[in-house]
């Protein structure tokens, strides 16, 4: 491969222009002739029996076309095995209804679907449905929920899943420790707060295919929809739109099953768009964790033992909680080499809003804990906080405490020292203000769990005029997923981006590429497109070598020409394509890329040989300014430094790193959904505050490229890792400013004031 021409440069994204012009269509922007408008009736209580549902009055309202309750759903109750959780009698099952039948388990649980000629009528009908409830006791604290006296959310036990890690001799480890730090950390519910609300439109097509066009990170939920409707999977087609932000919140099923049920019943197109309040009630949140940490080190700073007990709040239904917990468990020790370790973790049902995927997927909660611990150890030992980490960072080729060997570069010493040095001269301390600085390092997997045997497909074909078509079922989340694929094909085939059209995210027409989650699309689908493009390049150069009478190795593709590298001869690409067509040769390639596979994991295991394909490593450093009187915390500087393996589009990498860090600032200081006895307190964006342009510094990025990742050209993933260490870095900076260790997020002005007063 000759030198790369496009990869690594700040490329203009192919989708940006339409977005700037306002042409791009999102989930809410599609209309169909004669379509109906849908609403969802939701539970008023976090825990109650449903005694009766009376829809008569609503049905009689003129313009109402369908009302669906649990009894109308062909396969309403879905049971799935909880990953890796076994008992003597078989796998533990998680049960989830599409619509609540006789019991509601969280505030906002869907009970009925309504379709009507107008949104106004649908809303009116929703209010006319009478539900008789009998309130039941609420359990909203996961620690309480584990007690035998607790009300049960589901039959059996409130403990949904457990994982563990054990290595060495933990007690011996603590005996050998010269210094031990013990703390319990608490994190909160976080909402994704993407700007685009959930929604879409669905209709029935030829041959009874139900088409659902919606905003989603996972078009492959068409399989779940088919199961609920009781139709073959081939009869459900999900077409994704450009997504107005997701961050994991559009990873689980949102509106697609509801739309399909209403279309199945009415045979008419149906549109359903959530309001902001409904969105907050209806989609998952980031898991609150309670994390009891005990970390021991030698006088020289070497870590000898780490014990962690993690409890996460799964909310009312399982969703991805067992998976998130597994991630948190494996990441619990951070990017450190520790000889003695014990991690025990549980995820527990409560009557809170359900929790599931959110950028970092369990990685940021434990990072807040393990990096706070590292800082505490440094202070106790009187050691430099860079130095203590340097001594302990895991190295390439070594095994993580959880058991997996690190196969790519670990550039943490460099990311940490560079992030720290990049903080500019401290802002001068003013009267009444305290300035502090801190940093945190992290590791975060990219790609899905290897036991899931993940794969992605892509099709690349050349047209008679030399333009190129890419087909791949990648949902574009806004991170520039599609654009990077165009760049990769352009690099390999020498066809400019403007001559490439990419067709994404259609479960029937584009080859399935898996989910846009787990920081996997550049890695997985990037490799699939790379492979297909290389195959096609090979086909083109084979035919061209006959035409030019030189060997394939002497040829290159650039600017829609085939050129002889060390000569002056060249022929237009179209001429080669025409010859290929005339000879009846294929002019396209279909490729499948597989991630490394591994055996299934289970909750009895203490060591994991392989859990993830690979990890991204990085460091963030923060400076804060605290107002002693008001407790206001201002992040005055934030530096984000990562080894991204290889940059594909520099703009997109910086964009993830800047955006991820700002989301992390929100998580550290502002955001909290505040569930009180199962009732969400922050119900809109006036109550649930995310960072504005005035709340954040301009994030400085330092990008390193080890070229050792598993993605195309050695890329690693950066989407999720970009947020992982922010809260920890800020907490460490706040400690530096105040001498107070804050162990619960978000760190609000109220907490600062109280703690400062207490300290005096």
């Amino acid at each position: 491969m000759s030198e790369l021409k496009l990869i690594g440069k700040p490329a203009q994204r192919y989708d940006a222009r339409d977005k700037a012009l306002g042409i791009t269509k999102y989930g809410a922007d599609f209309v169909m002739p004669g379509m109906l408008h849908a609403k969802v009736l939701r539970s008023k209580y976090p825990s109650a029996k449903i005694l009766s549902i009376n829809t008569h009055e609503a049905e009689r309202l003129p313009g109402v076309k369908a009302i669906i309750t649990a009894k109308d759903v062909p396969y309403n109750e879905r049971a799935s095995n909880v990953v890796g959780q076994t008992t003597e009698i078989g796998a533990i099952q998680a049960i989830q209804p599409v619509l609540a039948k006789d019991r509601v388990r969280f505030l906002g649980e869907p009970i009925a679907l309504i379709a009507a000629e107008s949104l106004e009528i649908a809303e009116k009908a929703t209010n006319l449905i009478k539900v008789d409830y009998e309130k039941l006791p609420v359990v909203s604290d996961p620690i309480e929920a584990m007690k035998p006296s607790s009300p049960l959310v589901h039959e059996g036990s409130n403990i949904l899943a457990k994982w563990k890690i054990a290595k060495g001799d933990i007690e011996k480890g603590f005996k050998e420790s010269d210094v031990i730090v013990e703390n319990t950390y608490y994190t909160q519910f976080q909402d994704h707060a993407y700007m685009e609300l959930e929604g879409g439109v669905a209709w029935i097509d030829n041959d009874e295919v139900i088409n659902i066009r919606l905003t989603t990170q996972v078009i492959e939920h068409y399989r779940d929809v088919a199961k609920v409707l009781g139709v073959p999977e081939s009869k459900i087609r999900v077409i994704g739109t450009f997504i107005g932000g997701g961050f994991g919140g559009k990873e689980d099923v949102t509106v697609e099953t509801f739309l399909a049920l209403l279309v199945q019943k009415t045979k008419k197109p149906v549109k359903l768009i959530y309001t902001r309040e409904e969105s907050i009630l209806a989609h998952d949140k980031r898991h609150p964790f309670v994390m009891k940490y005990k970390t021991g080190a030698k006088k020289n700073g070497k870590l000898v033992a780490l014990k962690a007990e993690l409890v996460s709040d799964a909310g009312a239904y399982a969703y991805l909680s067992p998976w998130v917990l597994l991630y948190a468990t494996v990441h619990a020790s951070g990017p450190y080499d520790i000889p003695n370790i014990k991690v025990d973790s549980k995820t527990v049902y409560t009557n809170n809003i359900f929790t599931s995927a959110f950028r970092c997927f369990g990685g940021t909660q434990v990072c807040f804990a393990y990096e706070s611990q590292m800082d505490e150890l440094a202070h106790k030992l009187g050691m430099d906080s860079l130095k203590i980490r340097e001594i302990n960072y895991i190295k390439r080729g070594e095994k993580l405490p959880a058991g997996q060997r690190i196969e790519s570069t670990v550039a943490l010493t460099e990311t940490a020292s560079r992030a720290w040095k990049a903080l500019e001269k401290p802002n001068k301390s003013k009267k009444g203000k305290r300035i502090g600085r801190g940093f945190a390092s992290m590791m975060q997997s990219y790609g899905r769990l290897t036991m899931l045997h993940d794969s992605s497909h892509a099709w690349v074909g050349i047209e008679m005029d030399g333009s190129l078509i890419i087909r791949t079922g990648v949902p574009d989340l806004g991170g520039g997923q599609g654009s990077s694929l165009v760049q990769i094909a352009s690099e390999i085939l020498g066809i400019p981006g403007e001559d490439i059209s990419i067709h994404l995210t259609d479960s029937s027409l584009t080859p399935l590429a898996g989910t846009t989650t787990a920081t996997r699309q550049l890695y997985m689908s990037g490799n699939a497109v790379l492979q297909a493009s290389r195959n096609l390049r090979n086909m083109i150069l084979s035919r061209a070598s006959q035409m030019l009478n030189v060997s394939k190795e002497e040829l290159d593709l650039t600017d829609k020409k085939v050129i002889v590298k060390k000569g002056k001869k060249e022929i237009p690409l179209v001429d080669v394509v025409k010859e290929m067509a005339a000879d009846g040769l294929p002019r396209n390639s279909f490729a499948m890329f597989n991630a490394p596979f591994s055996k299934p994991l289970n909750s009895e295991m203490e060591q994991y040989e392989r859990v993830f394909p690979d990890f991204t490593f990085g460091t963030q450093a923060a400076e804060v300014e605290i107002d002693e009187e008001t407790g206001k915390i201002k992040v005055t500087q934030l530096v984000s430094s990562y080894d991204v393996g290889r940059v594909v589009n520099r703009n997109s990498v910086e964009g993830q790193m800047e955006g991820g860090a700002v989301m992390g600032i929100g998580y550290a200081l502002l955001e909290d959904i505040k569930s009180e006895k199962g009732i969400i307190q922050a119900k809109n964006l006036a109550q649930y505050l995310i960072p504005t342009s005035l709340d954040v510094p301009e994030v400085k990025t330092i990008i390193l490229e080890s070229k050792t990742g598993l993605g195309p050209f050695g890329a690693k993933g950066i989407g999720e890792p970009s947020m992982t260490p922010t809260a920890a870095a800020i907490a460490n900076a706040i400690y530096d400013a105040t001498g107070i260790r804050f162990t619960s997020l978000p760190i609000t002005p109220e907490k600062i004031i109280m703690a400062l007063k207490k300290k005096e």
Partner: protein
Amino acid sequence: MKKYTLHMVVNGEEISIETKPNATLLEVLRDELNLMEVKEGCGQGDCGACAVILDGKAVNSCLTLAMQAEGREITTLSGLNKNGKIHPLQKSFVSHGAIQCGFCTPGMIMSAKALLDKNPHPTRDEIKIAISGNLCRCTGYKKIIEAIEAVTKGKEEKEGENVRA
């Protein structure tokens, strides 16, 4: 509900349209005039995705009753392309990587336009204040601020190529 005739100038065109008295400007722009670039992110004036320019001022169209626009001038994002050219702000957002998911972009550009129309050379802090009512969950704002600043410094002063080739 009784309908009223609403007269307004939208993107330079005189419009008269029948509307219910409780309809918001956002609903009329999207549902009646098909201006789908005006986005709804919250419906409560918290996010700025629906921002349009009303008589020179950026407003949240979800909090503005359509009838309040009677006799007034409204510009939406697509109004910037009436001459068939891409606007310098749009061009700059693209070239600076200021667009990720793009959902906040229409409102963000309208807030920036309203600022630059009044104050062609704002400081970085003035830019931050002008867009502080427009939430963005993807970018961390830095590239948006850079894109707007580049226009004020004349780095992107030229209109772009035709909107549709």
